[in-house]
């Protein structure tokens, strides 16, 4: 039987002792005078807030904005969003930790989500994930992660590279993806989902 990994205190919950910044009071809405927010970030978040009857609805869009700005939902990023939205950082942290697309730990700038859900794994996605990991190596710019169903089972096994859906992938494609992203080119132009016609046309032509 595999040994259950335990943390200090006997806790089996990872991260229980990773403190948030305890020198600050999480229950206070950040003071605009002491929280510098870049003007374009403030404008983008304010524009989102204006769309909804309740400004709190802009929580997810605001987190998207600050994550794009900072690369991840760092304490500073969340504090900036909280400052503009007049919410507590604790509230936004609670939202950010719920959703898969927000990262509360530092990550690479290029997201590669490899789908390893049922349909893709039936087509060999686990091998693709391993190949993708080794293709990206320890390059800090890449954030390769396995993801639950991305909604593109017709091109299984597939991956989302910075939001661009590509598939069906073969192991050799992984190195190509890394090269394309590094060179700033379009990723695998022949395998992009958005260029694919409907299934009937695709298979019968």
């Amino acid at each position, binding site marked *: 039987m595999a040994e259950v990994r335990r943390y200090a205190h006997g806790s089996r919950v990872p991260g229980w002792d990773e403190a948030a910044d305890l020198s600050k009071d999480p229950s206070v809405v950040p003071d605009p005078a002491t929280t510098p927010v870049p003007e374009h970030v403030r404008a983008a978040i304010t524009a989102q807030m204006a769309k909804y009857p*309740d400004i*709190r609805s802009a929580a*997810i869009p605001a987190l998207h904005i600050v994550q794009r700005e900072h690369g991840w939902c760092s304490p500073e990023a969340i504090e900036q969003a909280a400052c503009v939205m007049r919410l507590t950082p604790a509230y936004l942290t609670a939202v950010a930790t719920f*959703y898969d697309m927000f990262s509360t730990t530092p990550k690479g700038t290029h997201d590669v989500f490899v789908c390893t859900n049922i*349909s893709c794994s039936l087509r060999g996605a686990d091998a693709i994930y391993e190949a993708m990991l080794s293709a990206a190596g320890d390059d800090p710019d890449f954030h390769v992660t396995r993801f639950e*169903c991305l909604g593109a*089972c017709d091109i299984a096994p597939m991956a989302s590279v910075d939001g661009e859906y590509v598939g069906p992938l073969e192991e050799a494609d992984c190195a190509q993806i890394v090269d394309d992203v590094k060179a700033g080119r379009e990723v695998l132009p022949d395998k992009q989902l958005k260029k694919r016609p409907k*299934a*009937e046309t695709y298979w019968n032509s």
Partner: protein
Amino acid sequence: MSDQLLYANIDEPGLATLDGYSRQGGYEMLRKALQMEPADVLQEMLDSGVRGRGGAGFAMGKKMSFIPKGTMDKYLVCNADESEPGTFKDRELMQKNPHQLIEGIIIGAYCIGANKAFIFIRGEYQHQADVLDAAVAEARSAGFLGERILGSDHTLDLVVHRGAGAYICGEETALLDALEGKRGNPRLKPPFPAVQGLYQGPTLVNNVETLMNVPYILSIGGAEFAKVGTETSTGTKVISISGQIKKPGNYEIVLGTPVREILFDIAGGPLDGRTFKAFFPGGSSAPVLPLTDEVLDLGYDFDTMAKAGSMLGSGAIIVFDDSTSIVDVAYKTAHFYRHESCGKCSPCREGTNWTEKMLKRIKDGVGTPMDLDIIDGVCDQILGNCLCVLGDAMAMPIASMIKHFRGEFEDYMEAKRAEAGLGPAIPQVNRGRQAGPGPMLQPAGIDPVPVSY
């Protein structure tokens, strides 16, 4: 009326733009609807009998009729958080024909008297969200959105809201919470969203495909629409076929088409040299059905699938063949639901977690046949005991796999034990009542260990 409503012209170049859509008679039905009374539009929807295409299959017209009359703030929310494994129809529909969705939303909002509408699209669909944003902007500048649409009294504002990756947000009340800027936890029902939904106002939540059917229903009339398909499953359905099959993809079929025709004629049959084993008829939440001759002859519609012990769900067919071990499929399924459980209700949070652990144990070759009984018991305890159906969505397929493929699970375990030189598994002493219902494996002559809670 042809067999294909949504897919016939979907690859028409330029369909995603207002010009292209107008060339095909787009927004004509909106003009027609605005001349009608909202109650007449509702009557057409009721007559059509169109059922929700998102998974639950609830009649759309009925749902609309639950929205109270009056002048309070009402909302229409389009559920585009398509996250059910195996489902990808809304993605293609939104990307290629966004204006038809917008037209459907405007008509729906007019029908219930909503002045604010949202499209909640999952965060991963970045390209599709951009397409929708552009289409909404076009529709707004053409006067289809905004104040006093086409000179009528109807006002509607439409916002495309991007989610951030959570399967649970496809559940309508969790979606509303996420839209209000909270963690996406489901709410206690009742009150249902139709009475108290977004911002406490009456809210109609509908799937993309359902709303895209609205302009068609108006153009041909509800009664005419109801003639297609079977008596209780009207219209056509876009189905997403994936897994180990020759031609995966989205296909539009008339409801009631036999499963055999779908899998063999439309999707090309199994990969070379393999035979089908079983399939999920409606996404990974649907109980699996082994692909026997009887199942292949069933019609693919809401009621037949329910009668066969499964469900049509979102219309996502995932097929697997004889090269795949049922243990792997079960583990992947349980793993997904464990990852996506929001953690609000204990039966689901703990049940998905332990089921995954037990399946992992089986997969690693250290399980015993008793684990199957325990999993079965856990699934039984989850069913119907949570606020939403996420727990059920794991319990149903896992329980069905154990039911249909128990022999394969046991053979797998024995083979793994033999590989490790462990000898045949001896059923362990029943640990007590918590092991759940069903025949327990209990060696003769040994009393069960007394359990004290």
